[in-house]
């Protein structure tokens, strides 16, 4: 590294002006409908208040999706089931931007059973008591998952540093 990376600044409250044209509520590489899943949930600040001005990006080797939260703090994203590498369980990388955050938080959302993912090289770094925050649960419908994000406090979602 020769040069220091440019500093991050908050996305602010009005990001929809700039980021809406390329919002993609489904990933770019929807290969086949049977691989398509939906994740929905709510983003909360401390005191369990919903956050209406966050934008989430879901990254995987197979695609990319970006969705804002609505006025009630909820989001819905559709994407292809990510390809599974030998050292990881099925997951998306997630970046979350919002008013109030000077730089994004980086987390992951895993699909599946926490007990069945013991070999995942990232989950091994996470304290057992917090692992559940990284898992989306079936919402009862096929291929639909619910995943809530807690930014701060008790039950705070695990965030990673790269």
């Amino acid at each position: 590294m020769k040069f220091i990376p440019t500093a991050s600044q908050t996305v602010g409250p009005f990001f929809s002006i700039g980021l809406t044209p390329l919002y993609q509520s489904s990933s770019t590489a929807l290969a086949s409908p049977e691989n398509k899943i939906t994740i929905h949930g709510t983003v909360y600040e401390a005191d369990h208040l919903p956050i209406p001005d966050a934008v989430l990006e879901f990254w995987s080797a197979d695609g990319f999706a970006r969705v804002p939260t609505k006025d009630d703090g909820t989001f819905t994203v559709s994407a292809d089931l990510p390809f599974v590498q030998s050292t990881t369980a099925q997951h998306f990388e997630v970046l979350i931007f919002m008013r109030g955050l000077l730089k994004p938080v980086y987390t992951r959302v895993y699909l599946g059973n926490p007990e069945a993912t013991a070999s995942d090289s990232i989950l091994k770094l996470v304290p057992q008591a917090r692992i559940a925050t990284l898992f989306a649960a079936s919402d009862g419908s096929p291929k639909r998952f619910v995943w809530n994000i807690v930014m701060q406090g008790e039950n705070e979602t695990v965030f990673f540093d790269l």
Partner: protein
Amino acid sequence: MTNSAEYRRVLLASQPPHLHPPYVSGRKRAPSKPLILIPNSLATVNGPVFGHEMIQPGDSDLTRQHSSEPLGERIIVSGKVLDDDGHPVRGALLEIWQANAAGRYKHKNDNHAAPLDPNFSGCGRVLTDNDGRYSFVTVKPGAYPWKNHDNAWRPAHIHFSLFGAGLISRLITQMYFPGDPLLAFDPIFNSIPDESARLRLISAFDWPTTKPQHALGYRFDIILRGGNSTPMESYRP
């Protein structure tokens, strides 16, 4: 700087922390538990590819998106996008958004009592060329008040969103203007501990890109993470 501890210290000081208490909106949103450090090698997800078909020819000229031109000082903002090894980042997507010349955003939640401009939406997109260069034509945004503290005003700024080679390169930042008296009082700008890193968010007035009888030029170069991790020096345009 030759050792990794020093490198990491400089890198940390060049980025804002998640929690900077003078920026009030972050107090209930910034994570309170320590982040879990994971090796770069385990999160090398490539970025999405944004093709030219997603960008319209006029997307980089914010003064030509309506029937007439917007009010305000016409400016050309240009620069280079490099990775932290100094290599140009080609085909990087830049998305920008900003207030109009009166300091008003075209957004339902902006209640500032300044006029909207029917000829200005404040949104632009462009891809970098083979040398990592980009250019936008726009108007200089106005300062505007906000409610962070008593008599709080944001310095004039343009929001920049960039996609580089991968997840680690993702950046959203703000470009400021030289000589703005509000910078000294802005908790967002001043959240960055290292002064030289702060100053690099201030664009430079630029004669070579100033067009006679047309527009003032401002230069803003951007460095994205994503090169190889070796010791570094400060980037000076």
